[in-house]
């Protein structure tokens, strides 16, 4: 297993490098640059080409793309992600300032997804073909196939405006102390909206997995030995049924992070999603690169984690 992990880590390096190259050159292909974004369209005529060129030079944008990429790689190797063109502050600091908000949101969504997804999956499996199962199946398809922003706007309309249970947006109320309770109050709506897709996905996987396990011989044996149905379900069936879910949950993390871009934007949540969107619009290249690098890293690590946990959980899997 150790060899396998080391090999996977070694393979991850060129993949990561490849991703940075692709990201960098796709970013380069976007029309306009940071200086273009800095000038209002109607004001740009007031600047002479020399002035614009001088501004580009100040930001180092006058160098050829491959040179800038190599400089970026060199600095990244030293642990330096560069400075944001929009703020002049180190990208690392900018990201660290926003990362907790995004982690808060994604972790809560994941937790919500696991608890409700697995819970509803069990109910669905135990009550197979009942009206509850049919209803949850329908609900699951609805949750999976509806875009997050629809739930976001609908959720704000219903739970914030009509029922007045949650604030419309933001992470805290200004003028109030950012207590844990206030933060959780602000977080519930975006976290639930972000996690709905996960709930549906986990629910369906938990259902089918549990149904598979329930039909196994050792469950029949347990029943034959006279064990209570609840003990069979919780003690024998569920533990084994959850094994494939560990992989599914690991693979869901990148999707949750991707989902934050839209959800954070709608809920004015000051995290990485909002920041990456602003950086793309502003052509803040060092930030775009750093955020993409981190997301790529998370995706690769999530995949690796999924493989490893699967091997641990299921002894039939052997990595050579």
């Amino acid at each position, binding site marked *: 297993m150790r060899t396998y992990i080391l090999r996977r880590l070694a393979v991850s390096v060129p993949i990561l490098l490849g991703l940075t190259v692709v990201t960098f050159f796709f970013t380069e292909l976007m029309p*306009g640059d940071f200086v273009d974004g800095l000038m209002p369209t109607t004001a740009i005529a007031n600047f002479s080409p020399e002035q614009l060129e001088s501004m580009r030079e100040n930001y180092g944008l006058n160098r050829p793309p491959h040179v800038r990429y190599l400089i970026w790689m060199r600095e990244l190797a030293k642990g330096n992600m560069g400075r944001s063109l929009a703020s002049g502050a180190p990208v690392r600091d900018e990201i660290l300032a926003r990362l907790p*908000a995004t982690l808060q949101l994604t972790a809560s969504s994941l937790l919500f997804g696991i608890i409700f997804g697995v819970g509803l999956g069990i109910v669905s499996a135990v009550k197979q073909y009942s009206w509850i199962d049919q209803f949850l199946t329908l609900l699951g398809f609805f949750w999976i196939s509806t875009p997050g922003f629809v739930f976001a706007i609908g959720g704000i309309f219903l739970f914030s405006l009509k029922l007045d249970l949650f604030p419309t*947006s933001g992470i805290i109320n200004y003028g109030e102390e950012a207590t844990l309770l206030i933060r959780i109050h602000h977080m519930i709506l975006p976290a639930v909206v972000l996690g709905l897709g996960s709930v549906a996905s986990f629910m369906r996987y938990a259902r089918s997995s549990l149904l598979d396990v329930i039909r196994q011989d050792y469950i029949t044996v347990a029943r034959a030995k006279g064990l209570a149905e609840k003990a069979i379900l919780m003690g024998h069936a569920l533990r084994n049924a959850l094994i494939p879910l560990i992989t599914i949950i690991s693979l869901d993390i990148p999707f949750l992070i991707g989902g934050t871009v839209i959800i954070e934007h709608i809920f004015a949540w*000051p995290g990485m999603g909002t920041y990456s969107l602003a950086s793309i619009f502003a052509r803040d290249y060092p930030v775009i690169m750093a955020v993409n690098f981190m997301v790529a890293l998370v995706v690769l690590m999530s995949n690796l984690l999924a493989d490893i946990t699967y091997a641990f959980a299921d002894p039939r899997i052997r990595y050579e």
Partner: protein
Amino acid sequence: MKRLTTHRNLLHVWTILIVSALLLAACPAPVAPTPEEAAPAAAPAEEETADMEEMDDDGGTLTFATGSPWGTYSPFRPTYQYGYSSNTPAMLTHSRLFNLDRNNVPHPDLALEWEVSDDATTYTFKLRQDAKWHDGEPVTAHDVEATVKFIMTQATNINPQRWISSLVGGQDFYDGVSDELPGVQVPDDFTVIFQLAESKVGWHLSATTDLQILPAHIFANVAPEDIVEHHAPAWYTPELNIGSGPFKFVRAERDQFIELERNDDYYGGAPNLERIIFKNFGTADTQFIALQKGELDVWKVPQDFYEQVLGLDNVDVHLVNRNYIRVFLLNYESDKLSDKRVRQALAYAIDRESICEGLYSGLCQPYNSYMEMRPWLAPDLNQYEYNPEKAMELLAAAEADGAWDPNNELIVNWYYGDALHQDIMAAIQQNLAAIGVQTQLQFLEGTSVSKAAANCEYDMMYQGWGFAFPEDYNSFFTDADRCTSPWGDPEARALFNKTAATVDDDERRSIHYEIQARLNDELPMMPFLQFTGPLAVSKRVSGFDDDAQWNQYYPWNNGFANAANWSVSESE
């Protein structure tokens, strides 16, 4: 048994991971400390503001919305920003020499009076003597001088062309050739003189509208490289944001909010409002819901929300006549549009009345001049009323002369990302197809549009124009070599240069009429629509009058000068 233990361990690992993430989440985000109250200073109100009612009551908290996310422009950076609305909070914390009302008439602010020499080269401002910075220091002419020098320092990357090219010695100072700036003189503590290299009528109106006066004693200790960027962390600190306006900066969290509190020592009288919040409410949909819920007090209504906002009980919807137009820049240098008959055909072919009525909810009207300021609009301009037959006649004539190829396909660009503009572009495409002109619609988001314009990668480009003064249009004539908007008609350019040296208003106006007539016929760009802007104001808000509303759509005319009069009640 071993297998079960492994599973249990795995569950433990997951539990630890999730609990750790939640613990991390529970740690509150860093919040900038609230500054200590500035030392109070006596500030007797001057005549101009003596009638402002002073109130001791809590005038409430007014909440504005900022866009999301905070992109290239910081909503709080008090230096020169080309009149962009992102500067609005700074208009409340910082003062200017004078303020313009919605008719572009200047009213005293820090300058009580000013004088323009007969040849329009010397502008003298007399400052009030009772103005104080938020930290209690007096505002003097030396602050004005330091502000001008600061924004003209190349290292700040502000590059204000109107100052660099106009002031005596401006270019040398900007280039670093000289440390002296003879174009700014301070004969005494409360007089500042701007000396221009050549006559520029109305220069003070255009050059100083965005000039928030900065405190020299604060900025003398600031290195430009620390604040050169719009979102530099220093801009979000109360130490740097010392102004002399009616409200004081308290704190700002990027992407979240800006908090201002009233300045009890304001020279115009203490404001009624206790606090002003500029809050990020997310997307327009979220802002709309926040408005309904009463979390948001003043909202600049996007056109596609106008009909829905009219149905709300808790707000009044005001319509603001905007000195703002949309135009189509036409690439008159390309083979496709080099003949003016083709350009005129495009103007006749588009049914602008129907677009306004059907798509813009009647919030616009066809417009036919680059001059969006109504008092300066030339009479008797060709209105280019919808006439597809005439358009086809013009095209046929151009085709007969070899100036138009029916196989041409015009590239039409726009940069407004809403669904409404997709519909408008589709309508335009249909109108043009009806006269046999094929188009390729290309949406460009904000940043890429400058590049497309600079490289001339368009045939028709839809964009907004909102200048404050007739002479602001000069940029349209400045450089005919660049394939952007400038128009290379030497006669029109000469006329424009003549306006800059014509002091008499009527004479200057008649020259502008002449230029408008030339452009109306030649159509190097096609004026398109002029707008009325809807503004939703909560019924709890009072004193937010027409001038203040105007500011929401035309920020470089500072209606916020009357902020001291606003208040918000608990109930509607």
